[in-house]
């Protein structure tokens, strides 16, 4: 019996070897679905420097049917640089040369990725350095000591743009801005007036030259207008506060007081115009409701371009040399939030406003602004519609007017409206030279607006000084008030309709 037990014990030990063995990692049924690994390096070209440089790898896994696999999972993999295994993607930049990088996952058959060639090169690898304005400060015009510029710099090699070298460029950058030298690309103040050259240099390679026209802002005496809102009695019953709201918004807009989430425009200015609700009727008596004139009407005009309505408005205009006339209408037939008539000038001080007329011309068109009544009854909220229409009233065109003459203001980007409705109101615009930029101008159709520019101010000021039917007398109390002469309506004069 003792022998039997001995044999049993011996065989048991022999049979099971008295130990348990741990597994290798490569036997997973699930992980062995990995059939292909694709690796993309954030950088493939590095410039020689006495330092180590980290870079990022984008590693994608695919199964045997070439479908993406293990998405959004932090999959561990082994990195090979040449034949050496490295812990992190990092390169010693003091050793120029070519290196091959790949990654491996320990599947049963050891799955390797594609091979990425990485090269450490000297500075003369750069064939072209392209200096450009950043999207938010793209403008050849600026105001001295105003908002700082941001620039972008891209390096091109024999195979096109060299990706991922931004940090190395920043470390080795020299930027000449006029007679000032700096080593950064952002937050560059312009402190000189005149035409300024901007050029970058990296590793001894020089970029193209950007030219900036730096100007001094000019302050003019504030010009104030009194505004009368004409409301048809059968349309709706307005409250004075809703008009005050539009007037207040317009004052902030024209004083340059609006701040948005975007960088402030390089040429943003106080345009120098202010507005207030009229408090007296044309006969000098106090208005029943400040700034509001109710026009008694029994007829409902469904067509905003109805000739009878046009004639009614022409006849109802208060002296345009005293007031800005704003009519509150139903503009649904135009699908517009507002419209405005451009002024006529007595001398050709700005482009785009023709013909030039004599000073004693009788009023022949309804110089006015129209706003849709929904802006005032709570159906539609946009506090800047009046400011936009007043821009037209003072002679401004849309910034998207066309790519030939543009809007006659140098410091606004010429562009056209995107046909794609989904980006029609986006602040991310592309100008007529196909360069991206951020638009925040009041005269564009965009969701966020915050500025009139220096050239727009100059244009509006010249228009104001040379326009017919403009309430200039209000700002010159000592001037001789000319009698208001209402002539024959010329219905061929058309406003700029704004389909926000």
């Amino acid at each position, binding site marked *: *019996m003792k*022998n*039997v*037990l001995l*044999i*049993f014990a011996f*065989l*048991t*030990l*022999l*049979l*099971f*070897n*008295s*130990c*348990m*063995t*741990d*597994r*290798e*990692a490569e*036997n*997973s*049924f*699930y*992980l*062995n*679905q990995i059939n292909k690994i694709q690796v993309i390096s954030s950088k493939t070209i590095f410039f020689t420097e006495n330092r180590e440089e980290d870079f990022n790898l984008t590693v994608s896994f695919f199964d*045997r049917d070439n479908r993406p696999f*293990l998405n959004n*999972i*932090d*999959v*561990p993999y082994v990195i090979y640089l040449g034949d050496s295994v490295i812990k992190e993607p990092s390169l010693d930049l003091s050793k120029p040369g070519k290196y091959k990088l790949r990654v491996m996952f*320990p*599947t*049963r*058959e050891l799955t390797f990725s594609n091979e990425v060639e990485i090269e450490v090169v000297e500075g003369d690898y750069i064939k072209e350095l392209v200096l450009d304005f950043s999207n938010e400060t793209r403008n050849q015009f600026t105001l001295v000591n105003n908002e700082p510029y941001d620039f972008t710099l891209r390096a091109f090699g024999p195979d096109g743009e060299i990706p991922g070298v931004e940090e190395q460029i920043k470390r080795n950058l020299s930027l000449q801005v006029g007679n000032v030298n700096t080593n950064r690309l952002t937050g560059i103040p312009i402190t000189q007036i005149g035409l300024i050259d901007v050029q970058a240099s990296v590793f001894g390679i020089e970029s193209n030259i950007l030219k900036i026209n730096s100007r001094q802002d000019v302050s003019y005496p504030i010009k104030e207008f009194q505004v009368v809102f004409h409301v048809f009695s059968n349309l709706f019953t307005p409250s004075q506060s809703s008009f005050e709201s539009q007037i207040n918004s317009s004052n902030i807009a024209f004083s340059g007081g609006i701040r948005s989430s975007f960088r402030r425009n390089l040429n943003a200015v106080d345009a120098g115009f202010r507005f207030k609700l009229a408090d007296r009727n044309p006969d000098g008596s106090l208005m029943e409701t400040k700034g509001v004139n109710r026009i008694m009407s029994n007829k409902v005009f469904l067509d905003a371009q109805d000739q009878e309505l046009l004639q009614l408005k022409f006849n109802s205009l208060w002296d345009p040399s005293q007031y800005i006339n704003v009519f509150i209408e139903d503009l649904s037939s135009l699908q517009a939030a507002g419209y405005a008539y451009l002024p006529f000038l007595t001398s050709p001080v700005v482009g785009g406003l023709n013909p030039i007329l004599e000073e004693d011309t009788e009023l022949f068109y309804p110089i006015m602004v129209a706003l849709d009544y929904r802006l005032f009854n709570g159906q539609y909220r946009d506090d800047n519609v009046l400011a936009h229409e007043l821009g037209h009233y003072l002679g401004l065109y849309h910034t998207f007017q066309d790519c030939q003459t543009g809007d006659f203001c140098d410091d606004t980007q010429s562009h056209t409206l995107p046909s794609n409705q989904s980006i029609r109101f986006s602040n991310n615009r592309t100008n007529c030279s196909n360069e991206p930029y951020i638009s925040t101008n009041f005269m564009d159709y965009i969701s966020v607006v915050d500025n009139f520019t220096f050239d727009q101010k100059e244009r509006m000021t010249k228009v104001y000084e040379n326009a017919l039917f403009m309430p200039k007398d209000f700002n010159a109390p000592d001037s001789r008030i000319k009698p208001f002469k209402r002539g024959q309506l010329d219905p061929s004069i058309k406003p700029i309709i704004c389909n926000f």
Partner: protein
Amino acid sequence: MNSLDFLRKALKLENGNKTGIIPIEMKIIKIKKSFFAILPLIGFIMSGIEAKATTLNDSIPEKSSEFKKGIRFSPSMNFFDYGDLSFGQIASDYKFGAALGMVFDWKMSDYHRFRLEPYVEYQNIKNNSINPDIEAITSFSNLIFGVDALPLVLTYGGKYKGTISAGGFAKYVLNSSQSTTLNGNSVNNFEVEINKLQYGFSFGAGAYLGKRLVELRFYQSLNDFVNSPVIPNSINQVQLILVY
């Protein structure tokens, strides 16, 4: 080096290639070689004991043929062999199971018996990635009908008989469920195809305790459980067989 290591090396059973890929055929040949290398040793030991037993038990008459049957219950440890185990080793990621069945036992001679053992088995087994940074586990629960045929059952002794056995088995998976987790999160779109018919050889050692039998048996499947294009995988099993 302990005595078992020495024995393994003497018998050349050690698998020196820890990381390489061993084709399934090579693995089977290797185990077969190992088994046949042991057989002469077992035969030598048994013949020596038999000679001694003949001289001691000459007065007890025994029947030359006998048929017994009994109820078989056997808890089991189940683990995958991916071709990376040395002979007789048990992987650390084993899972437990159990089987219930019958044993039919024919006495062929004083030292030789034949057994047939049908049973129904519930088997748990898991495929476990040990990569420290990513844990992928596929677990299986199988309901199996199996038959062990043991043509070579050698016994020795009187009331308590020592025994070693060798034979083959065939199992059919009646039902199998599987689940996979990746870093502890359930994976829904992954299911592997399994081979429902499993077969292989088994060998064990134990003792007849009167009418009862206790045996520890090792099962080596000779075909893959999961149809995988890259991973050879067979189920190895150790059963503690208790027969009443």
